[in-house]
């Protein structure tokens, strides 16, 4: 009978495909939009594209030259595209949205810095952009931290350096300073040059929820070097987006139960069969088929679009399937509780948003308020999915337990929905 019920739903969907095509086109659209925003089609495997910004050097000192040069040397050149302009020209280009930000090195920057006076670098962000200015701001904070560190550790040598930089010292004095500074740096090397961001391949403790977020990865300790895939921001974002979108898609698919209710077919079924579970379970299977298609489009399509590969596709697929089943169970319960489709949709939208936000799908959990990030998020199924899927990027540990929990919750939801519908029929509520 399950087969007959499922075949009926698939046939109906096939005969009236427009609503489903619209629903399934949404993940493609979302993935594509993210791709366009981040330059996902550029062929750059890091996918953010180069960040164009202006450097306005009002100091014109050798130290400012050093900062200017560092902005497009080596690795930085892969990500950053600095242009060197006067302030007016830079501001005009910012208004024309040709730049993501302007970095202003103020007059007397070098002399003030080397004499221990307070100095301020200025960053003017393009308000029309979100990501690139934010990345530049983060980078500037790193530079500022480094300058502060230098200032604290090399303060005693700064007057001599100032003499040299201002052209008042001789070559012998400069050579001595370089040697002295080099020796100091050599001694401080092990403190100054750990990788800024790294990871470990150790599994999270069984009782602690896994988290693949970049922040938590950086905070772990232990061996850093192994041949694991590079962290990919799009994979990270896609998982969160998928967690929310799959809930919404499950809501749409499960809403077919409401249509069966108002057109009387669900009641008609009940005139022939006492148990409602097969009917609800068949609708849940139908929902799983539809939502799995959405998941495949998002996760597999995203992989193609952003030029990365999921390291553990089988585990990710099984985990996603369990999450799809959970989403289906959750939406079955809300359909059974809500008297009509309109109200169920409203509730489901709110639920999806709240579960996604609080479950760390949209932001890393440790960026959330402590009460939510530390105490609420680990209890949410969205977190189990998103955090575990992100963890799968780094390791294959402990994916099974979250998947089993999600699947169990989904089954519970479907059974509860059947029970609620039975009560609803007995009370005469349609």
């Amino acid at each position, binding site marked *: 009978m399950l087969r007959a019920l499922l075949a009926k739903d698939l046939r109906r969907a096939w005969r009236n495909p427009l609503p489903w095509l619209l629903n399934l086109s949404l993940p493609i659209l979302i993935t594509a939009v993210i791709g366009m925003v981040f330059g996902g089609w550029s062929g750059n495997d890091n996918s953010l594209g180069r960040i164009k910004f202006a450097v306005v050097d009002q100091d014109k000192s050798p130290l400012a030259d050093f900062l200017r040069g560092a902005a497009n040397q080596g690795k930085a050149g892969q990500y950053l595209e600095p242009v060197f302009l006067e302030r007016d020209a830079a501001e005009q280009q910012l208004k024309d949205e040709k730049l993501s930000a302007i970095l202003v090195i103020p007059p007397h920057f070098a002399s003030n810095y080397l004499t221990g006076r307070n100095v301020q670098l200025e960053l003017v962000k393009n308000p029309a952009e979100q990501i690139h200015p934010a990345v530049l701001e983060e980078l500037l904070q790193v530079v500022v931290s480094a300058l502060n560190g230098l200032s604290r550790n090399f303060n005693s040598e700064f007057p001599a350096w100032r003499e040299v930089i201002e052209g008042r010292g001789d070559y012998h004095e400069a050579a001595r300073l370089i040697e002295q500074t080099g020796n100091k740096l050599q001694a401080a090397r092990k403190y100054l040059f750990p990788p800024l961001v790294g990871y470990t391949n150790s599994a999270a403790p069984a009782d602690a929820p896994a988290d693949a977020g970049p922040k938590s990865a950086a905070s772990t300790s232990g061996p850093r070097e192994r041949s694991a895939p590079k962290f990919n921001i799009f994979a990270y974002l896609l998982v969160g987006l998928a967690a929310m979108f799959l809930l919404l898609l499950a809501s749409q698919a499960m809403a077919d139960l409401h249509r069966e209710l108002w*057109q009387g077919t669900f009641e*008609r079924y009940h005139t022939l069969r006492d148990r409602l579970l097969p009917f609800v379970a068949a609708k849940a299977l139908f929902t799983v088929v539809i939502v799995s298609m959405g998941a495949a489009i998002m996760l597999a399509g995203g992989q193609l679009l952003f030029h990365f590969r999921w390291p553990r596709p089988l585990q990710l697929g099984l985990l996603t399937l369990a999450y799809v089943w959970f989403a289906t169970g959750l939406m079955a319960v809300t359909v059974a509780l809500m008297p009509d489709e309109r109200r169920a949709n409203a509730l489901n939208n709110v639920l999806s948003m709240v579960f996604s936000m609080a479950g760390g799908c949209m932001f890393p959990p440790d960026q959330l308020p402590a009460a939510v990030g530390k105490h609420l998020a680990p209890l949410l199924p969205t977190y189990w999915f998103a955090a575990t899927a992100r963890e799968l990027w780094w390791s294959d540990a402990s994916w099974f337990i979250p998947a089993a929990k999600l699947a169990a919750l989904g089954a519970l939801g479907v059974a509860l929905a059947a029970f609620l519908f039975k009560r609803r029929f007995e009370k*005469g509520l349609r």
Partner: protein
Amino acid sequence: MLKVSGISKAFGAIRAVDSVSFHVTEGEIYGLLGPNGAGKTTTISMVCGLLRPDAGEVFIQGKPFSANPGEARRLMGVTPQELALYEELTGRENLEFWGRIAGLKPAEARKRATELLEALSLTDRAKDALKTYSGGMKRRINLGCALLHHPKLLLLDEPTVGIDPQARARILEFIVGLRAAGTSILYTTHYLEEAETLCQRIGIIDHGKLLAEGTLSQLQERLGEGLVFTVDADFGDSSPAHWGGFAERFRVLQKSGRQLIVAAVGRRDPSDCLKELLALPVPLQNVSLKRPSLNDVFLQLTGRQLRE
């Protein structure tokens, strides 16, 4: 075949069905006649197990429904008032699907669907999507979907509502054929003509209560010896209470400013009744005699027309 014993159902403060009892014998069409909101659908919903009665019990072939709902459901076919069908599927697919839900194997369901399409004169449209069907054709499929598993008891909830007279006649003809084949039928309707022509026994229901039941002639006999008079006149302020001895000889069924409907009390000669009515102290325009209809019975029971 079906015995309904004192079932009641309330939705909050509203008593939708109040201690309704009746029975349907094998091969009988029992009509539940009443206006919209009388409690017909609620009664059928309790009989088929969709609603649990607050009180009373439903017996199918002598066994309480609640003792084995699954078995009771297998004996029944239900045609709901609304078209509980899938518009995207074809007529054949709808029939086959409901056959499968009723427990038929795929091959059986296909065979029965073919038979029913033939019986319902829909073979030539079998492969068309239901959304392309006329209202009458959809009603026929709606009826057919309850018949796949050869139910012994058929519950029909206003199966002809909203369709043209020709389509209705076809459905009624089909239902008569089912009865001839031995199917027991509980038939709800608010159409007087359907109840009069189709049903062997009729129960009149209003405000959740079964007011009267019996064959058509038994119900008609409730109105004296079958004499109902319609008096058209300008009654003005005049009232039957002022006409000496009128209440002993006639029962007033309905009175308006220009029309009075009365039934003769006891066994009376029609010509005597006519003379007495012609002698009323009001300016008469017309007096007519007719056999009482179900509407007159309903009028007598409720004080209002079924069509109101």
